[in-house]
């Protein structure tokens, strides 16, 4: 029904889009509520929940103690007994304190019980570097969770997708982990009013091109698009795929694209090795697209280091537009 209602679209920030999604979900479904550290009157560390507590009250915008493991577990317990909690981690890095509940409990409960329960919990993780917060407040751990059957892991790159994917996550019967890049929170973009969803598990071709497929996630989608724009001036035509979902991965969209362009590059902020780039590359190597490859696959990921404090070092840790331009040009012109 919602799909046929024409709705106005206006500019919202990524954070506002998330907040709007949570408000819509809470209005539509009384089972939905928010939990997290300082998400009430404080409005959340990144002001994502903002003033929601004034609208929905402290029962539905619940401040928790600084208890990531316990809080995540409470959300799991509430979900398994019929509520729809959205649990905000103050920083994605603190997932490390809650791994037990996320990995051993939320992800496996349905399976261990032979399908007797579902765990419709949503966990939100402010992620990524670029804020000068250094090694323990800047990580990108989505591949960690992407490795766990039973979880769904998404990385919205735009305000539009942040809202639509979050609404899809809230309505999903299984645990959904959302990694939100902190540098995107202030980014503005068109967001339709009202309720809509963006399907989990579907990648999005953000830019069509003939010469090279770049598969990017989160903030790297924007960097890849900028690089593609630059290179189009040199006659290099790049296709940019926003993966959007890490698990379950939309393999077909990537395979179809690589069959067309014959070249693949993966760009992601998390540490390069054993990550999303490895998975996408291996997936292509195993697929019918392998025979179409004209060049080796290239991965641009984070350096093999914790995120440093110094801003120049911090920038050097993760792929930047110049590096993407250089690597893409080399790949397409055969310099590599």
């Amino acid at each position, binding site marked *: 029904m919602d799909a046929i209602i024409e709705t106005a679209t206006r500019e919202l920030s990524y954070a506002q889009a998330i907040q709007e999604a949570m408000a819509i979900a809470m209005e539509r479904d009384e089972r939905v509520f928010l939990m997290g550290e300082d998400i009430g009157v404080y409005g959340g560390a990144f002001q994502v929940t903002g003033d929601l507590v004034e609208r929905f009250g402290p029962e539905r915008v619940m401040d928790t103690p600084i208890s990531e*493991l*316990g809080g995540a*577990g409470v959300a799991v317990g509430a979900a398994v007994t019929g509520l729809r909690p959205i649990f905000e981690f103050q920083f994605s890095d603190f997932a490390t304190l809650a791994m*037990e509940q996320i990995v051993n409990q939320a992800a496996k409960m349905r*399976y*261990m*019980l032979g399908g007797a*329960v579902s765990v419709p919990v949503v966990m939100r993780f402010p992620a990524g570097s670029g804020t000068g917060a250094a090694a323990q407040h800047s990580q990108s751990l989505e591949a960690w969770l992407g490795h766990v059957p039973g979880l769904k892991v998404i990385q919205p790159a735009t305000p539009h997708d942040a809202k639509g994917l979050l609404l899809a996550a809230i309505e999903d019967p299984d645990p959904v982990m959302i990694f939100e890049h902190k540098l995107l929170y202030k980014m503005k973009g068109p967001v339709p009013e009202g309720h809509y969803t963006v399907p989990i598990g579907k990648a999005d071709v953000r830019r069509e091109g003939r010469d090279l497929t770049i598969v990017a996630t989160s903030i790297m989608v924007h960097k890849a698009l900028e690089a593609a724009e630059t290179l189009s001036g040199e006659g290099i035509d790049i296709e940019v795929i926003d993966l959007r979902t890490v698990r379950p991965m939309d393999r077909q969209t990537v395979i179809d694209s690589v069959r067309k362009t014959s070249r693949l590059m993966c760009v992601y902020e998390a540490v390069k090795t054993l990550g999303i780039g490895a998975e996408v590359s291996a997936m292509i190597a195993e697929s019918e697209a392998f025979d179409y490859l004209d060049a080796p696959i290239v991965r641009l990921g984070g350096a093999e280091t914790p995120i440093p404090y110094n801003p120049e070092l911090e920038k050097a840790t993760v792929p930047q537009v110049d590096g993407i331009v250089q690597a893409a040009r080399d790949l397409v012109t055969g310099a590599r």
Partner: protein
Amino acid sequence: MAGKAKNGAEKPNGANLPFLYRHYDHETLRGALRKMHLIRQFEEGAEESYMRGLIHGTMHLSIGQEASAVGICLGLTDEDQITSTHRGHGHCIAKGADVSRMFAEFFGKTTGYCRGRGGSMHIADVSTGNLGANGIVGGGLPIAVGAALTAKKTKSGNVVVCFFGDGANNEGAFHEALNMAAIWKLPVIFVCENNGYGMSTSVERATAVKNIADRAAAYAMPGVIVEGNVVSDVAQAMHEATERARKGEGPTLIECKTYRYRGHSKSDRNRYRTKEEIEEWMTERDPIEMFEAELQELGVIDMAGIEAIRADVAREIAEGIEFAKESPMPDVANLEKYVYTEQA
């Protein structure tokens, strides 16, 4: 010891009767005894099936701890929920599960409660309010608090019982869970089955306070110590905690002092405790013997009645094992089923 002597000295008349006998009718009491026998014979049947190679993996038997499982669950409904532990067979039965489907689960069969995906360590019967045993020490504590949050938010009037061992009280999850339950005044009852050891490590060596219940003070909730092998004591503490929870006054921590007769799991060589210690518990404080003596003394049952219960339970166990043996194995083609919820 806070409990009563094996052969209760004071003669029963009305107000002097232990809580259990004032609060429940004889039929219920005989039912409680039957459940204790069912747990014990189930454990023995599981152990034997394991020895005979019919069950693989490992298991943690609760023989000797039947009074806490039964005493705690006695006043609960199917809507009240529990979270359980790796030593969870007794909880599952006490909450109302069918032993046939439990055996079937241990045998890895599709008719098992978890369709052969969970086994002993994840045994659960959601239909009777058991949200599951847990392979992670302390794993169920926050989940129970979450279930209690649901009860409070939906005003269901249900309570949640969180079983855990003495070992679990040193996990961070224990402290986080108790604190949240207390600040939000949730209808949850934390039941520590203190059997003296976490695997080989005694409570004295692992826990800074003398009693686990002492830790309740840190979370501003009542901490109650009971003789965990005395059904009536357990049931009374549970009754008071449940009243408090249902009235919205918040959680209680009950510590049941008990003992496990068998080793920790199938790999235990029992090197950390003496034979004498084990024997003393088995002969002096066996929960079933003590309950039977009390029931006979109070005229609730006679020896013939007890024999009839034992025989009836033995038949139920034998039938359960037979059912498990004859049940079909899961199809490997369905390996990935139940990872995610099937959607239209």
